[in-house]
């Protein structure tokens, strides 16, 4: 059996590796293999997988990448993730990637898709649009066509036709991945001292670079190992973390929040892992099925339009209930318009429900954790000192 530490060590290596060695090795292992990079928050990885390609999550450079060229392209009032992503590109760290998908999340990533076309003219780059109209006949049809366009593009790159059966098989694997992911989350919510959030993050992050089959195995192993953990329970409160769906916080930030007395019991990191909330059916037209689940059963985030005023922010309340959180921490990247514009509305919803919250900002390369500890700490102090125990 692999121990928790062994798994995490492996994940840490994958996480620290800004040259994506494991993906490079995967590609080199067989003639003709292709890798398709994607940015947050959601792309249908099933289709990439069905084309025999490796979907590779590109989530910025974190706090260890020295950004020189990236800064040359971005003003100081734009978030960090596009600049470190450009840095990864310019420094050749993504030179093995055969295509990049830029999902519809905000104007920054949207414009990055065009920059990529200009800067890396030889690589396939696509802005991957998703509908904000959730009617099957309107948005649904648009989306099915977009998915089929993507399918056609990918099949051109891979040089092979992507059959419905191949997509179905991929869907099955990703259904499994989603289920395991949910299990790990549920486990952490139950016994958060056994699954430190930085561990959980690393395990999930590994799924961005590993083939799904391998990641599924890792998740299974981790669940077994974590059950045996002998970490002690600490005098911490339970919080839900939200806002970090795109630019990733430094690992130290996650650790600092826990150190300052907060167990994170749910978060919105790496949503691609669990963007679809239900199993995608394997009968019928697989592309339509992907579209259908996307339209009707996918995660709510700031990048998605909420058609019903009464529903605005309710997903947070449901999560608080489901995971037994005592409060919500809004941690958003600086200059992240979607997260920061959404925040007041979500806060109103929480306020009405009497759920306490705090808010702060970070950058993927934040070095000073003191203000973060200060705020998370005050939050946990107040829950600890004043909760009815």
């Amino acid at each position, binding site marked *: 059996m692999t121990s928790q530490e062994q798994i995490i060590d492996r994940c840490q290596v994958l996480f620290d590796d800004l040259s994506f060695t494991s993906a490079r090795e995967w590609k080199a292992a067989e003639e003709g293999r292709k890798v398709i990079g994607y940015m947050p928050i959601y792309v249908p990885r099933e289709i990439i997988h069905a084309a025999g390609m490796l979907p590779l999550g590109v989530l910025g450079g974190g706090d260890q990448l020295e950004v020189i060229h990236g800064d040359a392209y971005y003003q100081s009032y734009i978030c960090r993730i596009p600049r470190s992503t450009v840095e990864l590109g310019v420094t050749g760290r993504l030179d093995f990637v055969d295509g990049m998908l830029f999902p519809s999340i905000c104007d920054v990533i949207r414009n990055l898709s065009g920059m990529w076309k200009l800067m890396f003219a030889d690589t396939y780059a696509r802005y991957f649009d998703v509908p904000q109209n959730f009617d099957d006949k309107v948005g649904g049809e648009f989306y099915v066509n977009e998915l089929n366009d993507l399918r056609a593009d990918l099949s051109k790159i891979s040089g092979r036709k992507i059959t419905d059966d191949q997509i179905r098989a991929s869907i099955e694997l990703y259904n499994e991945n989603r289920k395991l992911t949910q299990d790990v989350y549920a486990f952490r919510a139950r016994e958060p001292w056994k699954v430190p959030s930085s561990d959980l993050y690393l395990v999930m992050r590994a799924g961005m670079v590993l083939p799904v089959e391998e990641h599924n195995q890792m998740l299974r192993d981790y669940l077994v190992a974590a059950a045996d953990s002998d970490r*002690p*329970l*600490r*005098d911490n409160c339970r919080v839900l973390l939200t806002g970090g769906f795109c630019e990733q916080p430094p690992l130290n930030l996650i650790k600092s929040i826990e150190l*300052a007395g907060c167990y994170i019991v749910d978060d919105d990191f790496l949503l691609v892992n669990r963007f679809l909330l239900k199993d995608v059916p394997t009968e019928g037209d697989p592309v339509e099925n992907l579209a259908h689940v996307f339209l009707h059963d996918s995660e709510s985030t700031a990048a998605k339009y909420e058609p019903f005023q009464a529903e605005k922010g309710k997903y947070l309340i449901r999560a608080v209930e489901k995971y037994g959180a005592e409060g919500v921490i809004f941690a958003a990247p600086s200059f992240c318009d979607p997260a920061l514009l959404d925040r007041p509305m979500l806060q109103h919803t929480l306020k009405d429900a009497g759920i306490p919250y705090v808010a702060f900002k970070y950058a993927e390369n934040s070095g000073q954790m*003191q*203000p973060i*500890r*200060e*705020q998370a*700490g*005050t939050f946990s*102090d*107040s829950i600890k*000192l*004043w909760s009815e*125990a």
Partner: protein
Amino acid sequence: MVYTAGVDVGTGAVKCVITEIDGENEKVLAKTLLRIRQRDPNQLAREAFDHMLEETGLKEEDLAYVASTGEGESLPFATGHFYSMTTHGRGAIFLEPEARGALDVGALHGRAISVDERGKVLSYKMTSQCASGSGQFLENIARYLGIAQDEIGELSKQSDDPERVSSICAVLAETDVINMVSRGLTAPNILKGIHLSMADRLAKLVKATGIGESVVFVSGGLALDTGLIAALQEEVVNQNVPVTIRTHEDAAFAGAIGAAIWGAFRHEKLAQLQQLPLAS
């Protein structure tokens, strides 16, 4: 009755107090402040702590709880840590029972904290990274103008035509000030201008926390700056913030006092909750 200590490790100074707490009765027995000046804060904290023990004649084991606050999370001799806003809020109420808000202004930060009558933090706001309105900045400028720290307040109050500093960045603000000097502005007007700019930001913080009609207690090192206090009093009126600004000569100790009091509170709660497995 219990004795507790509060140790506030700041960026500019280390503050220590020992309190005697008997139910509702809270009393500060001793207090010490040591400026850090490039020395090791943790070592200084120990020094200050020993000094207080000596002064009160207490021994370390007489203390029910040694609570650290500020940047003292790793203080080896502390029983537990409370975060600054938690402690300043409580310290404010100790020093000014009517306070329902605390404004902690230190060398590099400003924080407005809204508390209820028990000292529970209801909300807070902090200044963001850019810090032209920080104590450090004021200190640099005073140095530049040839003014001692404890003269700033009085001089500022003599101003007749203050000019505000507009730059958000302290570096650029420094140049603003240099320009002012070269344009012949007097030191009182410059200082008052800085005070007003700081007060402007701080008043906004107070407003943003939603502290209603009540007393706001200014704590931290800059509470001693009477010029800033005066400017704050003006600014809250200007901005229609319905609060009354007050402070106290021991305001610099608010964090340490708050920590000591919470230490006693936690001590009691822990005693009740003995079953809770606590990791160190």
